[in-house]
């Protein structure tokens, strides 16, 4: 039942926030914060109450009949992987509410309504264990996000929002067709109509069907992740969205892509995915290099950060398709750390824009002298982003590279060049914006206490993940054991069957 509360609290808080805005612009913010905090407490409760029995797949589970005609269940369940993603969601949810505290001044109620509902959609995506429910949530988180972009976004918001929506919807529908194909093939072999994830695992598929269905899923997740060349919505959406929107996009929506690959593509279609490995690895490395190089040449600070996401998420793809435990662990750590570090960068850029009303790197410079706290935070997260040892991103990318080294030395070498390139863009950003003379004679207030809280939360998180990531790896371990069974299947079993 707790799982339903997790979603319901957010949905109800959204409605309450929307209504409360009639009387005060402050109430919606507190309602939202309170709802997310409540969810965090509930999540902690799930954690302490979880069964320590190793054989239990789920920490907690809800399974109701929903549309029996089609064999659709309302099935929510949480395991280690989902749990990590949930914590990240609530954490960044709090950041998103806090960072829009002064940025959003108009239509506050509707803003928080959308914010809460997009979080509810994301939580459902991480919990859904029925493919129909998963698709339902997958699409549903899209609409509030779309509103966040087109109503509170910057100059080209309508263009960016529509592009985002069309890309996701198109790929989502392809996934829906793939889900249906899987459903009917499962029925043919077993006589049971079901969308249940646990039951669909291990459906026997012909090679051709498996590849086609796998691609349907892969495209949907690749658009979200994003994988070059399906990434073009990302820089626009991230740049035009309000700060909270960018934080959620980069920190959470992209992660649903990685989560989908881990939860669905690999376990449901191990053979096809294995066969697809070379393509995926090359795409991943292209993404890493392309994202880093493009980021280097941006003058719009927000766009720069957006392109770094393309690069970092390339590592996630590389890790997932390297087919070994080290790389998988690295991918999960990278997903979490990228959420924190990129989220923080977006908050900083948003804060800067609120102060100086521009995102243009050429118009900045010398900000360190006037806003040392803000600049120091920016330095910290740039260093995290370029993979400084001791911070979370380093652990993730290092593990991924260790894992991928076993698969392809050449691609690993090229991917490492991506880390090198990240040094260039991160340092260039610091150089242009914060160091040097203050030629425009900017005068701006430093971090407010509220921003200070956000930054210190995120800094502590990244440091913790960088120095002692073991708890996260332990949480992920049981879920990974299941993946490992797939991953470490003898090569013969994975090879195409005649």
């Amino acid at each position: 039942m707790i799982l339903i509360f997790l979603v319901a609290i957010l949905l109800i808080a959204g409605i309450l926030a929307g209504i409360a805005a009639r009387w005060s612009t402050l109430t919606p913010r507190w309602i939202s914060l309170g709802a997310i905090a409540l969810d965090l407490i509930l999540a902690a409760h799930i954690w302490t109450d979880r069964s320590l029995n190793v054989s239990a797949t789920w920490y907690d589970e809800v399974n109701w009949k929903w549309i029996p005609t089609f064999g659709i269940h309302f099935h929510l369940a949480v395991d280690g992987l989902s749990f990590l993603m949930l914590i990240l969601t609530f954490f960044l949810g709090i950041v998103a509410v806090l960072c829009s505290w002064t940025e959003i001044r108009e239509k506050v109620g509707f803003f928080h309504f959308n914010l809460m509902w997009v979080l509810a959609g994301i939580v459902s995506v991480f919990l859904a264990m029925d493919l129909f429910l998963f698709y339902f949530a997958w699409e549903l988180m899209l609409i509030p996000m779309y509103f966040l972009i087109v109503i509170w976004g910057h100059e080209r918001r309508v263009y960016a929002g529509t592009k985002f929506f069309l890309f996701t919807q198109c790929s989502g529908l392809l996934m829906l067709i793939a889900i249906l194909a899987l459903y009917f093939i499962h029925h043919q072999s077993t006589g049971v109509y079901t969308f249940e994830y646990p039951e669909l695992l291990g459906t026997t598929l012909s090679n051709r069907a498996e590849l086609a269905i796998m691609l349907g899923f892969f495209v949907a997740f690749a658009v979200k992740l994003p994988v070059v060349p399906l990434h073009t919505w990302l820089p626009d959406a991230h740049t035009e969205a309000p700060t909270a929107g960018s934080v959620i996009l980069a920190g959470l929506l992209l992660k649903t892509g990685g989560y989908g690959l881990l939860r669905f593509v690999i376990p449901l279609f191990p053979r096809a995915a294995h066969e697809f490995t070379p393509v995926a690895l090359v795409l991943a490395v292209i993404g890493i290099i392309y994202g880093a190089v493009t980021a280097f040449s941006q003058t719009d600070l927000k766009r720069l950060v957006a392109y770094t996401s393309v690069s970092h998420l390339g590592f996630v793809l590389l890790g997932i398709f390297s087919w070994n435990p080290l790389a998988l662990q690295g991918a999960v750590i990278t997903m979490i750390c990228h959420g924190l570090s990129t989220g923080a960068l977006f908050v900083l850029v948003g804060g800067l824009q609120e102060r100086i009303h521009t995102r243009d790197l050429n118009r900045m410079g010398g900000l360190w002298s006037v806003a040392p706290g803000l600049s120091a935070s920016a330095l910290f997260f740039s260093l995290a982003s370029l993979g400084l040892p001791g911070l979370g991103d380093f652990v993730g990318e290092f593990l991924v590279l260790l894992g991928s080294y076993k698969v392809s030395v050449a691609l690993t070498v090229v991917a490492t060049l991506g880390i090198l390139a990240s040094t260039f863009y991160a340092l260039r950003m610091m150089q242009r914006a914060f160091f040097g003379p203050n030629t425009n004679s900017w005068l701006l207030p430093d971090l407010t206490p509220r921003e200070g809280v956000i930054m210190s939360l995120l800094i502590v998180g990244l440091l913790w993940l960088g120095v002692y990531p073991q708890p996260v790896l332990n949480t992920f371990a049981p879920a990974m054991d299941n993946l490992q069974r797939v991953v470490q299947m003898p090569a013969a079993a994975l090879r195409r069957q005649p």
Partner: protein
Amino acid sequence: MNSSVTASLLPLILIAVTAIVVMVGIAAKRSHKLTAVLTLTGLAASFVSVFEVAPLVPRQVTSLLIIDRYSLFYLGLIIASAAAVAVLSYKYFAKHDGQREELYLLLVLATLGCGVLVTSVHFASFLLGLEVLSISLYGMVAYFTDSGQALEAGIKYLILASASAAFLLFGMALIYAATGTMEFSGMRELGGSSLALVLPGIALSVTGIGFKLGVVPFHLWIPDVYEGAPAPVAAFVATTSKTALVALLQRYLGGATHQSERLFFLFSVIAIASMFAGNLLALRQNNVKRVLAYSSIAHFGYILVAFLAGATMAASAVAFYLVAYTVTILTAFGIVTVLSTSEADAAVLEDYRGLFWRRPVLASVFTAVLLSLAGIPATMGFVGKFYILYSGANASAWPLIIVLVLTSVIGLFYYLRIVVTLFSPVPEAQSATERLGWSSAFVIGALAVLLIWFGVYPAPLLDLIRATIGGLN
């Protein structure tokens, strides 16, 4: 004809009685309110009788009509949607001067025509129902005789509808010549009869049906009629009359597409062309009524996909989609109706700019409508589209459902454009907000609840459809 057979005809008889009562009522006392109340009472009685009759079915009434669970389901849908149109008309026509009462008479007659169509199993009753429907619609579309646009729409509809009816008649003659029967059951076994006559016959009769459904290439009238006709009438044309025709098509040719590859091909071409044309042509429209018109072309393309998928679940998928479509479009036109003024219908996109900040509830409902048309989850439109994809995938009609998916992404683009407009900043001149009126508020509210309720929890409706439609074949 024994009494139980007569009793099973009760819904149709009650509609016919309503028509007479309304006519006499107008002759006795010309009152807008009274006429509307009489109409609604009659339709409500007829709707209730649908449930009363349910235990008696199936009954074959002469060789012309059949009352079975299938026809009762569609009768219920048609009567309910006609009643919704009547309520909307009351609000809409109250704003206009002139003689408003006859509209209800035409509305009831058109509903009767639709009722005959969904119960017919014979060419004679098919044509009879179709003509009753069409002739009432000519009057309804051109109801404002002082409006050039409405007259143009009416004349266009008159000429094209008569021409298509002529094609239909010729097609019926050819089929009769080949099979020697005017009953639809004659279509079940096509193999034995001379295909050389039957196929052209079917093709010609498809012209007649395709015209009413407004699928490509018979779609040219759709945008003009939607734009020119009064908003509630456009709602009737879009929902009730099309529902009746689809129900008939299903009974008439439901099994035939699988017997003849050429027929399957013919319908596939129509479906694919409709999906593309409807969605592409809507892209450049700035008029909400025209957008709804073009999108309806696409939606009936989607319905044809389910129709083509055949198998047992196809009829259910079609039925569910029709309910979803009816609810969605009635809500849409309901909103257009309440936003319209006595001078002009609220049709231009600019009329909707910033609606959310002026009238948040109405705009939220309209957003739900647009998302339902686009097939986004938590709306009926999504479950409907899912059901169509479901039956398509079950029949392995991959090319058709891939086209459906691609074109509905195109469709998303123009729905989103309207959504963006609804949420745009308010223009400086704030128009005085007019009160909704309890009758239209009730209809729109009820439809909106259905739209979301069956979008989130469609199981009861699916069970109903499975129980009634499932027994078609």
